């Protein structure tokens, strides 16, 4: 059982393709190989292709532990077996390598100081009622007769012509932004406003509460933000 292991550099680290055999054999071979080249491979990010072998969660747990003790990071486990793929996914490992030239993969989430929001990529037509316990982002139009009610902010990348209520549970800091802000009625917390007759062509606007009054201002990229 001489080395059937192949090691190859890929964009995100090293791809190690194991030879045929059971997981026990592959595992043994892999550890031997990594030990013998420890100095050369030190600290590498590894993707391991195990072929058709079946790895249970316990096997994978042992493997990741051994690898991290040896100073490696396992980021992907490629397999033809669905069972193995599922175990890998439960460990948060990738099971597919990005194709060359593809956009980068997003490894988990880094949780900046943001808040989650609901993204809706469609036009909301008359009669559509969207309610959400948080922020709402609509990519599309909100037509007259549709309504959007959110506990947080509402952002519409399109024409907002329906009814919108931001900060519906009383958040007076909530805002409403739209590329064309002309709702039938706009509410923020307990304040209600209607759209005045527009002059000129639509511009992106942001509405918020200033001293209990709804104020809509044209989005000016040079102006200082909130």
């Amino acid at each position, binding site marked *: 059982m001489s080395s059937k292991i192949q090691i190859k550099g890929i964009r995100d680290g090293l791809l190690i393709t194991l030879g045929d055999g059971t997981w026990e054999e592959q595992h043994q071979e892999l550890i031997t190989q990594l030990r013998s080249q420890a100095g050369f491979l030190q600290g590498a990010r590894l993707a391991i292709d195990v072929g058709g072998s079946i790895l249970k969660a316990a096997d994978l747990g042992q493997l990741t532990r051994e690898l991290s003790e040896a100073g490696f990071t396992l980021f992907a486990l490629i397999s033809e077996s669905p069972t193995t793929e599922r175990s890998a996914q439960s460990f948060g490992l990738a099971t597919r390598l990005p194709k060359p030239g593809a956009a980068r993969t997003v490894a988990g989430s880094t949780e900046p100081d943001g808040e989650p929001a609901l993204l809706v990529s469609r036009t909301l*037509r*008359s009669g559509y009622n969207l309610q959400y316990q948080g922020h709402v982002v609509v990519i599309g139009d909100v037509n007259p*007769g549709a309504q959007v009610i959110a506990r947080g902010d509402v952002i519409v990348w399109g024409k907002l012509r329906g009814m919108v209520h931001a900060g519906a549970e009383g958040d007076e800091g909530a805002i409403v932004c739209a590329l064309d802000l002309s709702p039938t009625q706009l509410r923020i917390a307990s304040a209600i406003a209607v759209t005045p007759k527009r002059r000129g062509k639509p511009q992106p606007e942001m509405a918020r509460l200033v001293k209990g009054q709804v104020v809509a201002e044209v989005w000016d990229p040079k102006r200082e933000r909130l």
Partner: protein
Amino acid sequence: MTGKAITVTSGKGGVGKTTVTANLGAALANFGHKVVCIDADIGLRNLDVVLGLENRIVYDLVDIVEGRCRLRQAMIRDKRLPELFLIPAAQTRDKSAISPSDMVTLADDLRAEFDYILFDSPAGIERGFRNAVAPADMVLVVTNPEVSAVRDADRIIGLVEAEEKGPARLVINRIKPEMVRRGDMLGVDDILELLAVQLVGLVPDDENVLLSTNRGLPVVLDGKSKAGLAFRNIARRVMGEEVPFMHFDETGGFLNRITRLIRPGGN
């Protein structure tokens, strides 16, 4: 050969669903296709009147569904257009007499024999609408250039999408060229911008439509009427042809555009 089921609907009443169904049916039949028009407006039937076949009704849609007659017995052949048939609605029952699955079965029974199966939907968004839309391969939404009709069309288009029958096609009926020219009527562009669906027909307001409806003679058979031409164009688009849209002097000549530029200021 499998026929195509087309449902004509609108949400709002009185925008011309029945007129569109009757004329589209007559136009398709006139182009040599075998067509059956089905009135799904149970309790408020109208299509038979518009087609002038009222006095020949023996059996109706509910009789078919409830097994009191065979499909053939309820079909009325139009004497002027031998390729055009009508299945009338029952006048003494209501929408709950049939279910969406009855309509699907009916359409499937008719597909083998007909090229086009047209359903005239009732107004509204309730049972009657769902009955009419259930069998559709294509949905035509009829609207008028007025705010309330466009609002309802928007709602209907959303419901059609939700029933996975989308995308709906749009017919704008009763356009008054004179008012559009003056800028007093909702323009075609404004409507399309809001509804964002494919347009298949622009029908001008035309007295001949009313006359022909009262006489029970579809206006498409009138070679001179503008509305008749518009309906023939809709039929050709439904058949898959590319037909340019009629102009209502909307973009007009140079002088027109100048007057339109000046006029809003004067109001």
